[in-house]
């Protein structure tokens, strides 16, 4: 009897929050699902029911496929670079040296900056006329004419990835650093006595402590990278020639630039589904690795 009362009370206590959540998340979601089966425009027509038309068009169209591939590359490359740089930075900042605390504080800076500020900053760096990158490469003699890094389809995505890395590696580094500090000093000492060199020590002794937290960082960053919008929107708007158009940009263009609310909604739902699949897969992975250690 007590336990049912406790359960009932728990539900009662959660009820206000549940109502709010249904109102701000549930209802829009349901409405988006409804929209996705119509040919509604953003303004004007309410649209009429078109069945799976929107979905079929999107999934069979080359636009979606190309965008998916762009998103995939953006996510894979930026996240793996962030993981590697983040772990290296954490290993460095875990050493004893003069000025370590200042460096630790400085490292967080890129991550603490608003994305829009970061994006604007990098636009300046990449600027084809007075950008710092061009100036630097010229001075080192690596290029013989200023280039438009964000204006050429061949370099735009890579340039974006660099900017995204710079912003997000501190998060990985922070998580890794916290994990490194949890490695017992005796364990490191024991591995030194046991004769493990730097690499073996990292691989066999330290990595097990890093794996769990890094997995969390990986999940967070991959999902975020898949949904990336702001940094690209500020720097390239998906151009040039759609070479940096990711899924979120495509959704935005479809729904707002082309005002096709119906197919925009179906596209948004497809992206949501993809991200959900990712999240579930990672959650399973995390649970598995947590069970092991």
């Amino acid at each position, binding site marked *: 009897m007590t336990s049912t009362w406790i359960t009932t009370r728990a539900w009662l206590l959660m009820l206000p929050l549940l109502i709010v959540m249904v109102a701000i998340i549930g209802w829009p979601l349901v409405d988006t699902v409804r929209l996705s089966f119509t040919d509604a425009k953003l303004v004007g027509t309410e649209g009429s029911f078109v069945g799976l038309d929107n979905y079929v068009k999107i999934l069979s169209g080359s636009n979606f496929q190309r965008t998916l591939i762009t998103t995939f590359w953006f996510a894979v490359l930026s996240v793996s670079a962030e993981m590697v740089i983040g772990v290296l930075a954490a290993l460095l900042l875990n050493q004893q040296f003069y000025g370590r605390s200042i460096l630790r504080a400085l490292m967080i800076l890129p991550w603490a900056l608003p994305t829009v500020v970061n994006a604007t900053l990098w636009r300046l760096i990449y600027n084809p006329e007075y950008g710092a990158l061009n100036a630097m490469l010229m001075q080192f003699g690596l290029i013989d004419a200023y280039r438009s890094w964000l204006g050429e389809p061949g370099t735009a995505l890579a340039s974006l990835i660099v900017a995204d890395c710079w912003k997000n590696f501190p998060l990985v580094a922070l998580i890794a650093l916290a994990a490194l500090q949890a490695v*017992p000093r*005796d*364990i490191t*000492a*024991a*591995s*030194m*006595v*046991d*004769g*493990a*060199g730097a690499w*073996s020590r990292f691989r*066999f*002794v330290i990595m*097990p402590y890093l794996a769990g937290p890094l997995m969390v960082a990986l999940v967070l960053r991959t999902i975020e990278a898949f949904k990336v919008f702001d940094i690209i929107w500020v720097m390239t708007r998906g151009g040039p020639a759609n070479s940096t158009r990711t899924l979120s940009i495509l959704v935005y263009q479809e729904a707002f630039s082309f005002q096709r609310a119906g197919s925009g909604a179906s596209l948004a739902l497809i992206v949501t589904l993809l991200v959900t699949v990712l999240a579930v897969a990672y959650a399973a992975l995390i649970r598995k690795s947590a069970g092991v*250690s």
Partner: protein
Amino acid sequence: MSALELINVRKRYGAVETLKGIDLSLASGEFLVLLGPSGCGKSTLLNIIAGLAEATDGDVRIGDRSVTGVHPKDRDIAMVFQSYALYPNMSVARNIGFGLEMRNVPAAERTEAVQKAAKILQIENLLGRKPSELSGGQRQRVAIGRALVRDPQIFLFDEPLSNLDAKLRMEMRTELKRLHQMLGTTIVYVTHDQIEAMTLATRIAVMRDGQIEQLATPDEIYNRPATRYVAGFVGSPPMNMLDATVADGIAHIDGSLSGIPLPQALRENAASARDVIIGIRPESLTLASSEDAGLAIEAKVEVVELTGPELVVTSTIGSQRLTASLPPRSQIAVGASQRFNIDPSALHIFDKATGKRV
């Protein structure tokens, strides 16, 4: 040949000098216990021997080779940590064999060595488990196995038993002793537990504030402590320290009416010292009947505690406290005055000013 030699080893952390010049020479096969209170620098010294910390000054020689600047892995030492420091993700077998694995010992040879160590420590049935699936005592065995398998010149132990409960600690102590007798390796062992020190050591270095106060056999540490500090550190209940004045070969304990005539051997040494401390071990006191002659002191009994094997009697002489360990069935009246016989050969006299043995 000495297995280990420390020459004027010093360590400072900033302005604080943690080790103030340690000199020590250890023959092969010795079991040296570094004994001292928390913070006296035992671990620091052990880490310097292991190469995990660097001495500010002085030299460490292992097997007649200076190892200053030599990496821990090349010092031919193995270390057992207080926290066991097992690698949590590896099986017991791999934990034990990890040192060999890192030294590129072939797998077959490694397995054989691990099996052998496991057999000695009776943990063969645990080899497939992870450290998290072991009890404290089993982890301790694995940690020892990890050192054993390497067959090093010197074993270093940093308070290896302090995380175990009392019963297990006693068992492991015996086990360690057996292991040392069987293998005959040189061991340096850190502890602040005097019983461990007394039972295990062939020699004890009693440390205080970064210095060695006395380096001697357990027997000598117990029976001829060089300083008041050493005397007070070893023995339980601790040695009675009574303020006294010596005049004409008679020691007058402050607060006591009668004097204790000092035995001849002590008389000469104590002649010059006036203010002294008389050290009497609680276990060297016995009950005296009133007609007994010989060395005796009178004290007022305050508390009587039966610990099981002995009766601990706390009494006072003036404002000074006197503790006696007596046989459990002794007849003692609380609140009454009681005479205790003293074995003259068990008297320790320390200079009050310097704390040194007289």
